[in-house]
């Protein structure tokens, strides 16, 4: 892997932290969060590492197994989530900073719940 550490792009980290602050203020004041798509920005790996380090680790870490592994963890700022989605081959397909009370992908879907309920009798039979 190429070492990009020589790039001096701290200014981008500063700008993104300011944007996170703005989104978090919006979530607190107006219940309006938002997301920053880090893969859509010209960020070097070292810049992303710096950003990750600045935001820190919070209380919650979730691993989601849906069409590949996703890691969703709260940063040290409650309501600010570091979200990494990978596909079945482990390739990262989305890297986001989400500012939300709870990331939407964690909520259970009604149709999925119905399908689960339909499966319940079979599960009971198997369990016995």
């Amino acid at each position, binding site marked *: 892997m190429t070492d990009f550490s020589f790039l001096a792009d701290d200014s981008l980290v500063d700008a993104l932290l300011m944007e996170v602050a703005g989104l978090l203020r919006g979530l607190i004041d107006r219940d309006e969060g938002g997301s920053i798509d880090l893969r859509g920005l*010209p960020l070097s790996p070292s810049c992303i590492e710096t950003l990750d380090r600045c935001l820190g680790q919070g209380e919650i870490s979730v691993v989601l197994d849906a069409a590949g592994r996703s890691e969703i963890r709260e940063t040290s700022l409650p309501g600010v989530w570091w979200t990494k989605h990978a596909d079945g081959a482990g390739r990262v397909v989305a890297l986001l900073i989400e500012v939300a009370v709870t990331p939407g992908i964690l909520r259970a879907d009604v149709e999925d719940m119905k399908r689960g309920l339909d499966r319940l009798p079979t599960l009971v039979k198997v369990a016995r």
Partner: protein
Amino acid sequence: MDPTATLGEVLGRRGFGRRSLLKFAIAMTSSLALPPALAPVMAANLAKAKRRSVIWLSFQECTGCLETLLRSSSPSIEALIFDFISLDYQESLMAAAGADAERTLREAVSANKGEYLLAIDGSIPVKDGGVYSMTGGRSNLGMLTEIAADAKAVLAIGTCAAYGGIPKAYPNPTGAAGVEDLISGKPIVNIPGCPPLPEVLSGVLVHFISFGRLPELDELRRPLAYFGTTIHDQCYRRPFYDQGKFAKSFDDDGARQGWCLFELGCKGPVTHNACASLKWNGGTSFPIQSGHGCIGCSEPDFWDAGSFYTSLAGGSSAGWRNTGIALGVGVAGGLAAALSGRRKST
């Protein structure tokens, strides 16, 4: 597969829940540079959508475009795209041949009249009645004109289909032309590149299926999400350009330190594409990261635009001379363009 089933039903039967579809939508909105807030809308629309028929015709081409697009399909998340489309005709992939293939094409057109997407790779030779590329005794131009007439939209895949590409290079012995030179009155999307990035085709298809319309295009009919900025603006070597640090040869100290390849002929400053951000081979690398300058393959007439190894500042070719590129452009301008082109927040 039941053609009346919605994609949500099909995926549900296969054990894919809403989260998988939402995750796919998150990846696609990221790829399409759409606001992340649109991901739940896209997922909901995809769940309700039915498979879209795609008819793919290959003309004067090398099959490189099809090869690269096929390589994208597995095992990446884009594999899901094959649940979203019905590839009803593709000569290189389908089992049918000869009269069976011709019947398959007629049936696909008839069954999906006015609704299918027509994908084209390769240029269309028009000189001497189009005799330089024929399929089943029919010229490429004749097939394109006939099949495009009932298409919902036409996707010109690769630089050859978009602008004529290498077959059109001087002296263009076959009179090669791109789709947009020959078809009018139909929505046309150009997905240039030699070959094109597979993620761009996935993104265009998913956008069309999700929202019922094509994504926003630039003046050359390319999806803005992928072609809105130059390679240069997204390039990780861009800070060296701004600092005036250039490799002078492919094996000098500057090259070894990863300095800018502008003086070695890199066409990144005038080439619109997403190679520097999406990269190739599953996000592994792209030509500049491998030490070679961009050759500008997603721009019209790139093959005739001068040497790949002559810099934009000093090139003698008219094609590259009038680009308005000057050394010393500040980092703020470049980064601002990149940020405004790609950043999304809601």
